[in-house]
Every structure is written in C-alpha cells, then in structure tokens.
C-alpha cells in the first residue's frame, strides 16, 4: 500500500461543487479519499501543511508548446512538464507543431511515453488537424485519439481553408473532441510584427489588424453553427472577438475560447523600445482589449485561461524585432499574473480563477481532474494566494527564458502540485 497524503489546514476551493471552506483533504491510492473538517493523519500518512493556502483541483493548461520532438534544445516534454508542475499545473495539452508534426498515432504515442517518463504534470497530446499542418488533407483524428490525443489543432498556423475547417468540425464529432483554431486571416496578417495601431505606426513596424483575428473568429463560429461541431478558439486578443463569441454563445453555438495571461495583462505599449519579449501572435493589443478580455473571463464568455507557453532560444529573441520569433513562456507565471492582475484588482475572485484554470478546461476537453469530488483522481494544486515573489527567469524549470515579466514582483504561487496522489512539485524543494 502506498503512503497516504493528508493536506492539512488549507482552504478547500472547488467551484465545480460550490465548495469553499477550511478543511483537510486526504489522498489514498491516488484518489481523493476524504475531504472536509479535521482528518486524523493515522498510520503511514505524509502530512503537508497547507495553512494559509488554497487547496484546489489541479490547474490544466490546454495550450502549450513543449517543442519535443524537434527542438529539444529549447524545451523537452520533461522540462515542460516540470515547469508546468512548478506553475501549479497538474496537466497540460501539448500543441502538435513539433518537428515532425504530431499528425499520426505514432507521434502521439511518443509524447505519451515521454510524458510518463517525466513524472511531473500530465501531458496530453493535441493532434494536427491536417497532415503536416499543411492545411490540405485531414489527419487521422481517430487513430490519434486512440493513441491518447485529446483535441486537434493546426496551432501555430491558422486553418486558412474554410472548407477544411468545416470538414474538421464535422469529422471530429465522431470523437467528441474540440477543434482548436488559431484565428488569423493569413493575407491580412502577412508580414505583421505587432498590433496595427499608433505604436506600430510610430515604430515603423508592420501591423496586424484586429480584423485578422475577428474575421476567422466569426468564420469559425458560423461553421460551428452549420456543422454542430465544437470549435475552441485559441488565445483571443481583441474586444471584437469577445463580442463575436458572445453573439455565438447567445445562439447556442458550440464555441468556447481561451485567453492567455499576457493578453490579459499587457498592451502593445510593451513593444516600445523594440522589446522582442513583447512580440507574440496574436499581438498584444490595446488597453480597451485587455479590459474586454478580463470582463469576458469574468462573465464566462471566454471559458478559460491557457498559457500558449512558447519557449524560444535566447539567440532567437536577441535580434531585430521583425526577425524575432513570436511567443513567450508562461507556465511558471500564469497563476501569479492572474492573481496579481485580475483577482487583486477585483475583476475575478479566486473561485473564478480555479474554475477558469481547472474546472472548465477539464470539462471542455473531457479530461480527468478539475474537481475535488471524493473518489476522483488526486490532481490537486495547493497555492498561496498572498505569497509575493520576483520573476527571475534564470530560476525557471522551463528551458525558456523569454518572458516580458522578468523583474516583476507578483503575488500568488503554487506551493504543492499533486498528480495522481504524488507530490510532483513543492516550493523550495
């Protein structure tokens, strides 16, 4: 019999069950055995002191880039899974734009095996929509699902063909998986390096208009209406997209959406001085967009927070803005950014944070976890809502150092991350 684990003295927070009370939680055989009130430790039980902390269902990031296979110099599944655990994530979904592309069952199986060896956060593969992400022929959704894929996406690239998107939304219904789109109208976004606006005009950088995203958002919503399929819109960045999603949801169309911590907390002003750590796709927008995204996360128009964790080599970002790659890392800063920039100012509360980072992702992607219900898998995050810390990229477990938040002092930090009853991360350990 494995040792039992008692989380003692924390505040149990599980919005899926409207639970928010001080109490202990006992884990046995990898499952949540008991919760609430005071629980005696008993024999062969390890006790974790959770005083002052929230004990919540483990966070799930449905959107990250772990770069393996192909760019193991930048991140591996093991380093990514450990970084995820350090950020309080018990599970992450890995995007398929690897080298080679994760577009078949063997490639999916490889990620599953690497993730098991990592012994940190769970890693669920996302398969490609199209073979080699070329946007032409459908990849084998069924075979990839059978090997362990949980969704399909051509992320990194938009699905340019409306016909392919329609077909994917239809075909995916046999498996009840979301089709994730990176919404970007390619001819409108072509060559763009940042949001099109006054800052891009001043810096002399080619702009990406908000419509490049919104045109694809409404296209995908209309195709979901036509097909009845579930479209999940990745990394929403504009106020207009929020309005379109709201329109779709009001009509009962199966559209869900995510937003990243950086689109919730930064504007195009971060590109001043040609800071390549502020270069992302979709680009950072304006204060009005940031406000609309926060409000949409609060009211549920946007369902969840996802990191779009995108590690790049130091050299790749140490160059001219137009030539630098898009993307920043996010696994180890996501929780603190949401606490500092959304919970502390009162945009959302902690229950909403847990819902958008754990319960909703689990429900929409049909993943285990996302609940503290007795008998469910013991994927649990213990986080200190008041702990302040300063972002030091050199201390990250991710191989990536590309973050615009270096030096920022933030509030909120994972203290214990527990996957299947095992402590895979402990702060300071």
């Amino acid at each position, binding site marked *: 019999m494995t040792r039992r684990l008692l989380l003692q003295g924390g505040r149990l927070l599980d919005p899926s069950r409207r639970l928010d009370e001080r109490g202990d939680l006992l884990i046995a055989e990898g499952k949540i055995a008991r919760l609430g009130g005071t629980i005696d430790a008993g024999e062969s039980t390890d006790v974790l002191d959770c005083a002052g902390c929230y004990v919540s269902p483990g966070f799930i990031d449905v959107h990250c880039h772990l770069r393996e296979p192909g760019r193991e110099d930048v991140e591996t599944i093991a380093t990514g899974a450990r970084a995820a655990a350090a950020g309080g994530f018990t599970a992450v979904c890995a995007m398929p734009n690897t080298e080679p592309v994760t577009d078949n069952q063997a490639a999916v199986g490889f990620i599953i095996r690497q993730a098991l060896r990592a012994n940190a956060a769970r890693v669920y593969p996302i398969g490609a929509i199209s073979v080699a992400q070329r946007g032409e022929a459908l990849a084998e959704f069924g075979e990839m699902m059978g090997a362990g894929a949980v969704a399909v996406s051509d992320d990194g690239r938009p699905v340019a063909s409306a016909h392919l998107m329609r077909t994917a939304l239809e075909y995916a219904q046999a498996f009840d998986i979301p089709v994730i789109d990176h919404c970007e109208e390619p001819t409108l976004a072509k060559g763009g390096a940042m949001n099109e606006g006054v800052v891009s005009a001043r810096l002399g*950088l080619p702009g990406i208009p908000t419509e490049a995203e919104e045109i694809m958002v409404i296209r995908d919503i209309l195709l979901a209406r036509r097909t009845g399929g579930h479209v999940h819109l990745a990394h929403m960045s504009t106020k207009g997209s929020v309005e379109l999603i709201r329109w779709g949801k009001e009509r009962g169309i199966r559209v869900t959406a995510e937003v990243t911590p950086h689109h919730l907390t930064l504007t195009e002003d971060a590109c001043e001085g040609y800071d390549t750590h502020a270069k992302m796709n979709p680009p950072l927008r304006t204060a009005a967009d940031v406000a609309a995204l926060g409000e949409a996360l609060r009211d549920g128009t946007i369902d969840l927070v996802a990191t779009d964790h995108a590690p790049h080599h130091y050299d790749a970002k140490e160059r001219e803005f137009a030539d630098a790659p898009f993307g920043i890392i996010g696994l180890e800063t996501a929780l603190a950014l949401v606490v500092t920039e959304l919970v502390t100012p009162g945009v959302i509360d902690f229950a909403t944070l847990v819902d958008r980072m754990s319960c909703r992702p689990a429900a929409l992607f049909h993943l285990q976890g996302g609940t503290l219900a007795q008998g469910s898998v013991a994927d649990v995050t213990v986080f200190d809502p008041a702990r302040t810390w300063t972002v030091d990229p050199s201390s990250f477990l991710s191989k990536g150092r590309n973050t615009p938040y270096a030096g920022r002092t933030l509030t909120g930090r994972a203290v214990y991350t527990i996957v299947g009853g095992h402590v895979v991360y402990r702060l300071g350990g």
Partner: protein
Amino acid sequence: MTSALGKDLLGLEPLTSEQIQLVLDTAEPFKEISERAIKKVPALRGQTIVNLFFEASTRTRISFEFAEKRLSADTVNVASSGSSVQKGETLVDTARNLEAMRIDMVVIRHGASGAARFLADRIESNVINAGDGTHEHPTQGLLDLLTLRDHFGTLAGRRVCIVGDVLHSRVARSNIWGLKKMGAEVGVCGPRSLLPWAIGEFGVTVFSRVEEAIEWAEALNILRLQLERMTAGYIPSLREYNRVFGITRERLARAPRDVLILHPGPMNRGVEIDSDVADGPHSVILNQVTNGVAIRMAVLYLLAGGRPELAEAAKGGSER
C-alpha cells in the same frame, strides 16, 4: 561625457525642440567648411567611426563619409555584401566585434526598424541612425528642417505637406516629429493604402487629394515611390500614381502661392515628381544634399562631446 544630444541619435521623436534647434544652429558654421578650397578641420581628429551599411545607399553613405573626413575622423566603411554579415553573422555579434576594436562611433543603415536602437543598447560607442527600416532617418529629417529654415527663416507656423508613401517611409516619420517639434503645421497626402492606419493620431492634417494639399501647403516634401509597392498590391500602377498623386507643373500652377519643393532622393522622375518640378525654380532638392553634409558634421561633432558654442572656433582647428 554625455553630449547635448545624449549618447546616440536614433530618431527625432525622442529629441526636444531645443536639441533640434541646437543641431540646426551647429550646422550653420559647418556649412562654410564645404565651401573652402581645403575642406578639412581637425575637430574629430583621432576619432574612429565605422559606417555600417546593411542596405544599399549612395547619397547618405557618401554624405556621412564626407562629413567625417571633413572633421578629420578616421573612418571605415562596412557594406553588408562581402562582409561577415553576409556570412550569417548576427547584428549583435557584429556590434560586439566593432566594440572590441575600440571604435568611437557607428553610423548604421539597416533594413529592420529598431536596428539602430538595438545596436545602441548593446555598445558603448555613439550610434547614429542613418535609416532603420520604416522607422526613422533622423539626419534626413534634420537636413530637411535646415533647408526649410534656410528658405523661410523660421519653421514655426509654416505649412509643410509630406506627399506619397508615408506608410513605408522613415523620412516621413522623422519629418513629422521634427516639424511638429519646431512648431510647423504638418500635412500628409497619399493613397490611403500607403498611409499608416493610425495616421490620424499623429497630429497631422490628412489630405486625400493632392490638389487640396498643394492649395494648403507652403512646402511639399515628396517621397520616393518604391516600385515594389505596385507588385505588393498597394497601388495599381505607377502611371496612375503619377496621374492622381504626381507633383506636376500643372498642379503647382494652380497653387495660390509659390510652393517650395523638397525630395529626399533618389527621385523617380515622371512618377512622384515631374522633371520640370524637380528642376524648377522652387526646387531646393540640391540644397538638401549640400545641407546634408553640414547637418551630419553637426551631429558627429555634438555626439563626440563638442561644445556647440565652440563650433565656430572648431572650424579654425584649435578647439574640439
């Protein structure tokens, strides 16, 4: 020591009107040196300057080189073709190697917006932006201001319209900032597809018809129309551009006043500007070129820590 302009000249947007005024005033005494039989003063003797040109340039590169030589600096020219840059060396490595050779200043022309700033943030030497992508070309902006001031006496209240491909023009941006800081009124005119989407937030008057711009303006700064704008789908044809936006003698003849004509070069005669306008009585295009050397001498002198009030004396050779 920190010069009156700071360490670098990266653009006109970060400068104050006092700093711009200082460069223009400092250029005045330097104009005369180029008129001498022996065009050389020792103001920058012992200073080493690298002209780092990642993009083809004739006018700007030669203008900088004359300015440096007339101030007695030691100069080296690096063009991207045939150098380590073409062999795949990154800009940051190029910068560090230059720094290791203990140079004093770098003049950089680069196709990427922000390249001059990138270099300036990473090396101790003074950096002068000789044009970075579609961002700024500050010495061009300054020489345009000097040319306008020569003609009008003062820039305050003057109405200057920039005509053409503002979207892709570093000259346009430097002119907008420089002119506005010096109190001029700025107009822009061109096909809407070649103006920045957010041009309305620059505090300029936007003209969609060139006839209206000509009626309003006291001076036109006519931008070069790059031929590739047609293939990229911004405009249908050069012929039509000339017909709708070209500065022609017929259009100027209908102006309520004489309109001063500037062009940063190189010109596409018959496209954005007709020959009889370029060569006409109100053209100051060659004055711009002459002023370019004086402006660049002033910038080099000031960044090297030269005291503005001694610029006149520096000409004599005793001071630096």
